């Protein structure tokens, strides 16, 4: 379970407010001008952690989605004769309680965990960004109300929200994605609102207003593209968090029912065996989760450093 990343974003905002730095050039719409994006990419790739992170994520995606194509196991019919076997040539990671090959199970679980993580992160970031941008742009009473709602939802520990929403919504993959997305949109909303507040007093926004541009134009063609940096960084952390949330929910019994599986579910199944010494049921799923979450954190940190022009004076 991760404790969320609101803090480091808040630090960024504080620092941005104090020193007034901005990675994209002032003014204009956020369209691709080769040199800026190339510079960001270059700094990103210089960072060894980033490359390791991207490598691990790519490996995990290939492992989970292409793995079953290369390494055939059947995951539907239980085979109690070979259940709980230790790793061997036939089953490199042993078999689980129902006789399924554990390595194949890991691949299948990876598919679900990654899918849910990515989808939930996209939903969370989209909803949050739009909410935050509207709140920041409109300001005044509407902003106050929207932000109080966010604060109230943030005050309830996300796990309580997850459990309550999980009980309301049931346990299919789609509902799981919605539930996690509903809990995770709060942090991007706050971040984007902060960025919007600082961006909307910039000269180019005033210029658009003077030229007669409406709020919608400002919102979609200027503000959101210029907050893309923060949004993308936050999105990578959201993926990491979402994967951990899926694991936590599965551990608490609110995850996806069998025969579908995900890494968290495999971990919670492994709990029953801690005192029996079936190590191959406990470690692989946990290691997989840690690897992917750490990888996404590396990517997020490096992206943030790459977009943070000030820190490059190090």
């Amino acid at each position, binding site marked *: 379970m991760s404790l969320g990343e609101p803090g480091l974003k808040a630090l960024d905002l504080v620092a941005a407010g104090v020193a007034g730095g901005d990675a994209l050039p002032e003014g204009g719409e956020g369209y691709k001008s080769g040199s800026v994006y190339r510079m960001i990419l270059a700094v990103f790739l210089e960072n060894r952690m980033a490359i390791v992170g991207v490598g691990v994520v790519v490996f995990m995606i290939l492992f989970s989605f292409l793995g079953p194509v290369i390494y055939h196991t059947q995951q539907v019919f239980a085979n109690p004769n070979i259940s709980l076997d230790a790793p061997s040539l036939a089953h490199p990671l042993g078999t689980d309680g129902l006789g399924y090959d554990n390595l194949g199970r890991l691949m299948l679980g990876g598919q679900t965990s990654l899918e849910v993580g990515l989808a939930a992160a996209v939903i969370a970031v989209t909803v949050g960004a739009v909410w935050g941008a509207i709140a920041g742009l409109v300001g005044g009473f509407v902003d106050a109300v929207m932000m109080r709602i966010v604060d109230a939802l943030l005050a309830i520990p996300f796990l309580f929200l997850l*459990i309550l929403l999980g009980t309301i919504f049931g346990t299919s993959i789609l509902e799981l994605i919605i539930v996690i997305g509903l809990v995770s949109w709060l942090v991007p909303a706050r971040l984007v609102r902060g960025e919007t507040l600082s961006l909307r007093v910039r000269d180019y926004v005033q210029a658009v207003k003077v030229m007669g541009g409406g709020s919608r134009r400002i919102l979609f063609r200027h503000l959101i593209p210029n907050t893309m940096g923060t949004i993308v960084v936050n999105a990578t952390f959201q993926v990491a968090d979402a994967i951990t949330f899926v694991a936590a929910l599965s551990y608490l019994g609110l995850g996806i029912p069998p025969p579908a599986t995900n890494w968290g579910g495999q971990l919670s199944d492994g709990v029953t065996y801690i005192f029996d010494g079936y190590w191959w049921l406990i470690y692989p799923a946990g290691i997989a989760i*840690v690897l992917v979450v750490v990888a996404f954190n590396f990517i997020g940190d490096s992206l943030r450093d790459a977009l943070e022009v000030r820190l490059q004076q190090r």
Partner: protein
Amino acid sequence: MIGYIVRRAGQAIIVMIGVTIITFILLHMIGNPVNVILGTHHSPANVRALTIQLGLNKPLPQQYLIWVWNLLHFNLGWSYRQNDSVASLLAQRLPNTLLLVGTSTVLAIVIAVPLGIMQAVRRNKPDDYVFTGFSFVFYAMPIFWLGLLLIILFSSLLNWLPPEAPQSQGNLFSQLNALILPVVALTLVTLALFSRYMRSSMLENMVQDYVRTAKAKGVSDRAILFKHVLRNALIPVITLIGLSLPGIVAGAVITENVFNYPGMGLLFIQAADNEDFPVLLGVTVVVGIATVLGSLIADILYAVADPRIRYVS
């Protein structure tokens, strides 16, 4: 200063009201307590009678107001599963959770601050990488997996510590060494988070102009570090700690589940399994209000430490 406190307190009260509204709505979406209580005995007459008795036939806003009125009188309802008033259940469990969360948070802060300072000073050297690596790994690890690993290592293999928290009624300190593992698990994860904040904050401050000025003035490196950078770096970390409180409580929930620790998190999970709505409602609201209070205190401390904030809302 007073103005700032009043404004923040006003916001906090609105957020608390928001918490009660949201929790109330969520609980009503979960299900109908009448069917849960009656089980197989629900003839229409019984259903009707119980609905009226529980006051569930009144319009929703009225139910909400009645509930809030009771809340203000510390009447949190009656748990039909555990046959006890919700308030007394909470009174039993709240101190335990406070112990777990409080000890872990304090330990995490006490270790994270020096660690963050050290990492910032020796950044990009091997020790920095090692500790950053550790904090990444512990931050990424699901708490229940960490708890499991600790149990395997210290209970199963080494047999030094018991795998479960003390269960004796009301007396948590009967087996002090059983408290160690839950606290260690929660502290490690919290520590990973706090040391990242601390390191990040220290680094942000060390590249500021005032540090260069101090060095040019001839102030010793040690004095710069402890008198200037540290004080400025601690300020955002205070707010971040305040913001992390809900997360730490969530972590405590899972830890309590793993170690069977008799706290509010375990109460919540059991209530969710049992469909015990009054308990769910009571626990969520109490924890929500406690976290709002915690953030309020953190923000006030922040204003005490950093005068610039008092002029921003």
